């Protein structure tokens, strides 16, 4: 009985933790045909949160992608339009704001 109670308790604890949730990770690049190419182009130099916190229209995403290619992002010219489409459809201005996590507590 005691063991049963403990396992129920563990399930409750795990379900309450973010890592266990079925929700997609909001700090990561979303699934899609361009996910891997976006990883190569963007997250070689910086992490995905810099991308996913933006809320931009297609014209602004176009400028960002072209600037990053100039700065060394690895992207085939034939993938440029698809990457812009992936970013502007996943992170448009009307999407709810990104909620940033907090860092760990430290003694000071």
């Amino acid at each position, binding site marked *: 009985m005691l063991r049963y109670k403990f396992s129920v308790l563990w399930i409750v604890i795990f379900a309450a933790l973010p890592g266990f949730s079925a929700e997609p990770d909001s700090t990561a690049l979303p699934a899609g045909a361009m996910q891997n190419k976006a990883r190569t182009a963007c997250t*070689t130099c910086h992490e995905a949160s810099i991308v996913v916190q933006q*809320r931009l229209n297609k014209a602004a995403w176009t400028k960002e992608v072209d600037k990053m290619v100039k700065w060394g992002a690895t992207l085939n010219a034939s993938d440029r339009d698809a990457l812009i489409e992936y970013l502007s459809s996943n992170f448009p201005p009307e999407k709810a704001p990104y909620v940033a996590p907090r860092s*760990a507590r*430290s003694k000071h």
Partner: protein
Amino acid sequence: MIEWNGLAVNSRRQFLKHASMTVAAAALPGLLRAASGEPAHENATVVKGKDRMIVRSVRFLDLEMPPEYASSWITPVPHFFVRNHMFEPASVKAREWKVSVSGEVENRLTLTLADLNKFEQHSVVNTIECAGNGRAFQSPKVPGIQWQRGAVGTARFRGPRLADILQRAGVKSSGKHVMFRGLDEVPGNVPPFIRSIPIEKATDRGTLVATHMNNASLIPHHGFPARALVPGWIGSASCKWLTEIKVLDKEFDGNFMKPGYRFPNQPVAPGAAVAPEDTHPLTALNVKSMIVTPGEGQHVKARALEIHGVAWAGEADIVKVDVSTDGGTTWSPAALGNEQSRYAWRLWSHRWQPPTSGDYVIMSRASDSQGRVQPETAAWNPSGYLYNAIDKVKIHVEI
């Protein structure tokens, strides 16, 4: 705490070293991550020397101060915001570090940390604010780190005056601007972090080559072992991990001066494009205030409450902070705190007795010695710089 959740990866070397581990960690199911038994929030990223900051990005490190931490005149280093454009230099050894002074000077200098310590030491309490603080509130939205209210903080910086260093080098009459280069490690083809300030500001008694922050050596995130400290100006003027000081005959025009960190010469319609020739480099901060307590969305049970905040104005002085508790219809002056220094924010407070229980919008509006007043709507610009609209928090009060 499981190790891979605690990796603070913000230098290139650390990133390369831990890249394979990070991939392995990403592949592990959340269940295993949870098995450490730590409460959920303790799975958070560990950033050395920093405490419960808002993580805008880890690689590159961009940390925002939660507004409730602005409750003291001096911001503790663990709560001070961090804005990095690129990788922090992987290892800077105090004994090997040097800064060069060159360009339009009579004598080129190479100074070690010990050399800097031999100059007369000066302290400046300065409120540093990132030019992009508040960018998230611009409408229409603009690209960049989506800072809300906390890319700002106040610290006591110490080190030699840049003027004394330049005097030893002997600035030629052709020297009109002073350029700083940081040791930031550049990814891809990103241009190096170099900016310049006019000679008048460089030789101002407040401008330092700072080695200390709040009476301790700078920590790596804040530019160890030395940084420029250009008080009252946008944060990016105060170049971290300083390695080169060069006197120029004209303004530096690399990426972080042009097109970066520029502001339209004339007001522009929100969303409009601005021609590069119609812009100028950002210099001093503008007038701004922030409500610290009560916090946004807070439910307060009290017959009277104390509204606290901070207000700053770059190179100008705060002369007044007005508070409204009725959404901006009526305003009352707040009491300004006693602690003050030329380039530092002022604390302010206002005691308020809510007439009835209900929802309220609290607002704060600062005025400065140059006659500037915080506007209802900030001037929109394509990079979202210098956001300074009247601050607002929505609260619920039960009396």
